């Protein structure tokens, strides 16, 4: 929708992996011009949908819930993939599709709140792949550290209560911010002050992924400051591999 701005890189990433991605505007779904059932993956790209007004992702989430909730629930129940990057992650949280510790919730059970630094953090981060239920990152070795950039002002994950936070932290964390030795560390390694250094989580079934860092900005070596790594590519490859194997 208006304000989304990472769709081009995301589209190209899927295209380069030999799939047939399509841009789908929320209005096309609302008006029935395109159907959710025609796809294997819904990828919510980053940006500032609806100007980030109210809270980042809140308006996009409210529109999806108001018009497409039943179809989207069915889509993920059938095992298809939903992934949200940055603003896409904020949307999935606001919709209650993540963390979804006990299934999709009517109200948000977490929030991506303002960074502790109160700044827009826009730079590379190091994230460690954690063992979780996530089915779409299984191609990435557990413990691997990837360099993927963040660009957000609201990325600090908080949960509705401590017990809930601990359970998500134990089962559903896919990526954590780490330092150059692979250890959990505070700012600036953790760019936003997220609980448990969480950078990305999945749902209880492992087919919905949300993460703040932007893999589409680390798809090619030339997008990275070291001109060497292209760690973001693995995340797209994981989605494609999961879909190819399942369907």
């Amino acid at each position: 929708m208006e304000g989304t701005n990472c769709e081009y890189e995301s589209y190209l990433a899927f295209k380069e992996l030999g799939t047939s991605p399509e841009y789908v505007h929320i209005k096309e779904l609302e008006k029935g011009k395109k159907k959710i059932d025609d796809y294997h993956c819904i990828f919510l790209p980053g940006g500032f949908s609806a100007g980030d007004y109210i809270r980042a992702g809140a308006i996009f989430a409210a529109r999806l819930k108001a018009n497409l909730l039943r179809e989207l629930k069915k889509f993920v129940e059938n095992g298809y993939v939903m992934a949200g990057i940055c603003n896409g992650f904020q949307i999935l949280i606001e919709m209650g599709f993540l963390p979804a510790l006990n299934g999709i919730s009517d109200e948000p059970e977490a929030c991506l709140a303002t960074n502790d630094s109160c700044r827009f953090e826009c730079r590379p981060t190091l994230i460690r792949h954690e063992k979780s239920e996530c089915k779409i990152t299984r191609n990435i070795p557990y413990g691997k550290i990837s360099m993927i950039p963040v660009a957000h002002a609201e990325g600090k994950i908080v949960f509705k209560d401590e017990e809930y936070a601990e359970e998500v932290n134990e089962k559903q964390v896919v990526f954590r911010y780490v330092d150059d030795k692979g250890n959990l560390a505070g700012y600036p390694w953790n760019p936003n002050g997220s609980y448990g250094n969480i950078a990305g989580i999945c749902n209880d079934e492992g087919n919905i992924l949300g993460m703040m860092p932007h893999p589409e900005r680390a798809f090619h070596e030339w997008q990275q400051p070291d001109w060497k790594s292209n760690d973001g590519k693995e995340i797209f490859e994981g989605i494609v591999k999961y879909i190819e194997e399942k369907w």
Partner: protein
Amino acid sequence: MLRARIEIKLKKGVVDPEGKNIVKALHLLHFNEVKEAGVAKVIELLLDEEDVDRAKERAEEMCKKLLANPVINEYSISIEHVH
């Protein structure tokens, strides 16, 4: 017509980085008596409605569906007549 005034703020215990920055900036301007700052958002809605109870109920629904996130926010609603 009625006007709903909805104040949305962070729950107690939720870190308020904007508030902290305001305190810091005010101290730099020598307002050293400032000990704490809390940032809230006010949304005013003009409603085509005459029933105060119904207006409040609808505003409450708006908060739940869009305007507030129950994990970090609390809100208060006041309704007044507009002449």
